[in-house]
């Protein structure tokens, strides 16, 4: 539990420092959050045992939880790196209503800690509470730009829909408790028998988590929230919130309902097909880049849930690896978007025209990341998708593989729209080179290296496979 403790302590420290510092010194808060997350990262990778339980088995550590925590910490770290410039005002175009750095970082750290708990909970109550700890701070973050109507709208929509989703989940968990009389996941697994109530409970939970994962038809909130929230928050939402949803559904589907997952394969396949198709088709017509990324994220969720068609020995590694790739790739795209919004205040796709002339390296990074999202080899997105497609193919869903592969091509169409703006359209007459801050430049560079190398170097997949392939539910 050491990494979680570090993250929470850091959140509290940031909040306290914020109280004692004057405005000038508050520039230190970002680095403090960074140090906290780095320490948590170090604690996770070096000092945490990969297996073990505490608190009477209610909090457990295993390989799957370990990888999820790694993902949460990485997304948190990158989000802080991406937020620093915006919050400290080192931007080309100032945005009103961005401030209160201390609260921002501490709220961010709290949601990270909540997500980390999800992966380790072995009890219905703690599972639900950690989900709320992960979600509620996100509502606050989405509405961060107090003076901005869109941000407010985003926050409100997110609260309402998020609360509804939570209610669904709670209802589902309640039914499961009612059926078995226990909240311990390990006991639940043995006590559950197939029944109508169990199907109802599963449907409730899947619907609730569907909101988090932006699975069609529960994706409606995504576009508005993504557009309204401050861009670093959108970046965080698009990766970490999805990861958290996946961690939660892993707990429910594999740990509790492991024996019944195969019965729902057809349903999962239909959800997957609908999600990727709708996300892709709607993304084609988007003009605002954040809305665009929202629908792109919806379609990525569609590919992701293809993993539920398979047995856990292949599905878990494939989904975790896909998530690792998705986190780095999506953050790489968002890093470029955040940089551009910081410098120009513009968010339309057509604003990116001629970027390859003015800032060739950033344009190249963005193109690589977009191609990786589209699944073009040798970038990592290709490998990630290929493994998921392979699971669907193994389960005999050849039609779904076809739908998914055609969808990848459709997605390429709209990713190419941005590439076209950057590379083919000519820049405005007076467009000059835009400055890049050191923090953003190194973040973008690191993320892009990860985007390239995750697809070429097998060691990450192999170690995920070796550690989680033998996962017992």
């Amino acid at each position, binding site marked *: 539990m050491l990494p979680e403790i570090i993250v929470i302590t850091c959140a509290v420290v940031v909040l306290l420092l914020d109280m004692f510092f004057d405005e000038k010194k508050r520039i230190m808060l970002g680095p403090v959050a960074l140090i906290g997350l780095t320490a948590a990262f170090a604690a996770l990778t070096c000092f945490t045992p990969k297996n073990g339980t505490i608190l009477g088995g209610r909090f457990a550590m295993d390989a799957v939880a370990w990888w999820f925590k790694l993902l949460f910490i990485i997304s948190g770290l990158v989000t802080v790196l991406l937020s620093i410039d915006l919050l400290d005002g080192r931007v080309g175009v100032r945005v009103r209503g961005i401030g209160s750095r201390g609260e921002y970082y501490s709220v961010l750290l709290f949601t990270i800690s909540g997500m980390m708990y999800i992966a380790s909970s072995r009890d219905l109550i703690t599972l639900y509470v950690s989900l709320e700890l992960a979600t509620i701070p996100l509502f606050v973050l989405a509405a961060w730009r107090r003076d901005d109507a869109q941000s407010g709208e985003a926050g409100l929509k997110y609260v309402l829909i998020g609360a509804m989703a939570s209610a669904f989940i709670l209802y589902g968990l309640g039914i499961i408790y009612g059926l078995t009389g226990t909240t311990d996941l390990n006991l639940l697994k043995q006590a559950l028998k197939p029944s109508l109530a169990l199907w109802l409970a599963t449907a409730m939970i899947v619907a609730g988590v569907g909101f988090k994962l932006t699975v069609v038809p529960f994706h409606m909130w995504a576009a508005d929230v993504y557009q309204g929230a401050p861009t670093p928050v959108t970046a965080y939402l698009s990766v970490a919130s999805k990861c958290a949803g996946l961690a939660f559904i892993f707990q429910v589907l594999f740990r509790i309902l492991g024996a019944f997952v195969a019965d729902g394969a057809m349903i999962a396949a239909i959800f997957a097909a609908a999600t990727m198709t709708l996300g892709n088709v709607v993304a084609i017509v988007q003009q605002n880049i954040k809305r665009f990324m929202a629908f792109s994220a919806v379609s990525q969720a569609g590919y992701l849930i293809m993993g539920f068609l398979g047995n856990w020995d292949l599905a878990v590694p494939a989904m975790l690896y896909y998530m690792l790739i998705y986190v780095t790739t999506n953050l790489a795209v968002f890093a470029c978007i955040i940089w551009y919004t910081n410098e120009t205040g513009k968010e339309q796709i057509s604003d990116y025209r001629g970027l390859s002339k003015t800032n060739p390296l950033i344009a190249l990074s963005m193109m690589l990341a977009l191609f990786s999202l589209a699944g073009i080899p040798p970038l990592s997105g290709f490998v990630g998708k290929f493994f998921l*497609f392979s699971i669907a193919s*193994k389960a005999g869903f*050849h039609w779904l*593989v076809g739908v998914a*592969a055609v969808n990848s091509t459709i997605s390429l*169409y709209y990713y190419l729209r941005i590439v076209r703006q950057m590379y083919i359209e000519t820049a405005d007459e007076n467009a000059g080179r835009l400055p890049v801050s050191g923090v953003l430049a190194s973040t973008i560079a690191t993320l892009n290296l990860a985007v390239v190398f995750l697809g070429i170097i*097998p060691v990450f997949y192999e170690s995920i496979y*070796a550690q989680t392939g033998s996962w017992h539910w």
Partner: protein
Amino acid sequence: MGLVSWLIAIPFLTMLVILAVPARNWRIIRWIAAAGCGSHLILTSAVTYLYCRAMTGDSVNMQTSLLTKLYLVEKVPWFESLGIQYFVGIDGISMAMVILTSIVIFAGVLASWYVDTRTKEFFALLLILVTGVFGVFVSFDLFLFLMFYELAVLPMYLLIGVWGTGPKEYSAMKLTLMLLIGSAFVLVGFLALYHASGLRTFDLQQLAQVHFTTDFQKWVFPMIFVGFGVIGALYPLHTWSPDGHSSAPTAVSMLHAGVLMKLGGYGALRIAVYLLPEGAIAWGLFFMVLATINIIYGAFVAVMQKDLKYFTAYSSVSHCGFVLFGVATLNMMGLKGAVIQMFSHGIMTALFFALIGMVYSRTHTRMIDQMGGLAKKMPWLATTFYIAGLASLGLPGLSGFVAETHVFLGGFFGNMWANTGVMKALAIIATMSIVVTAVYVLRALARVFYGPITNHDFEKLTDATLPERISTGLLAAVLFAVGLSPFLFVNMIESSLLPILNRLYQSGAAALTH
């Protein structure tokens, strides 16, 4: 790293060097590109020599073999738990394709000697593309194959979109999307093969030892064949090709029509027919009919074209039909013809597009009826254009004749599964296209190069420069070489075609006894 890996690595390393050079030194960049491709040509010659020496005498052993024999093999595990490996090697068919690509890219770089807008990015993308193409031709692991295949397709978008002419964005998008939808079909087929084999491997040689059930073969074969057919311009999925070729800049048209379209025929032969012989037997006649439509339709549409690039693009559709026709005959003659046609058409069409690019850069028009009498001003270009044109209509002595003869004879010989009468009829129809080809080629050439000079601006035009002469001269020389001594070439590929045929006969005999 072995020699075959270097075949992939040289263009990639050249690309990295180019990226390191500042963009303002564009003159140096093209020299680097030429040096890289030149050294690739030397390496290819070395590999060809090693291959030919190693394979001498092997064709006797291959008479009954069911597995193609690979040379210079390199095998490294990659994603080990999924059975994905880095597995490259050379056999006769891939050797022919590597030689083709190496020649075309070298000629292509020389033909783009005067690209002065964003030269650095142009050559970098061109080299990425060609890295992908070499990768496809030497990889014998399906995952690796698919990876290189998509890597080869994508740079096209930017190459056409940025440096192209005409409705370039439309063409670029259409081309990219259609080709990738093709690869989506291929992906479904590959994954189905992977799981149906139960071996947890993408290794082509291991998959070839598995017997897939007939029903399975019957649905996977068309998946893969159509998927590759898209890039091989199979009717009615060829529509990306005229638009793409005519909008692309010179070197890209050369590579695309010359090499990339061959990925289709290569994949269909190497993977679809090789792994799924029963599927091939079941579907052979169907695809033969489509290929015949390709041949005739492409030729007739080419007659109507007024733009030199569209004209060549449709003639490519027609000629790529010969490749698919040859593959669909499923006999030795036809398969040989398909491979020779891939090579011959690759060189010929690259020469065509190079010359069109050179003529266009002088006259600034591609409209056939706006030109006239150019032979007086540019004798070199006119002569090489004629060589390409004559090869295209199958004049003996040039490579086109060898290829087309094989393909047609293949059609006439028939095979033991399909109705021989129908195959003969199709072969006769396809042969007629030669007449149509003669009509459009000769008419266009006469129009462009002979007669009086109609436009007075053309009085000042100059003939080919040295890089252009090397580029076109090399390609024309290869057309002669294959045309005059086809046996060298046939020897090289024959032993690799035998296993494919043996597999067909084995499963065909089994099918007949049922």
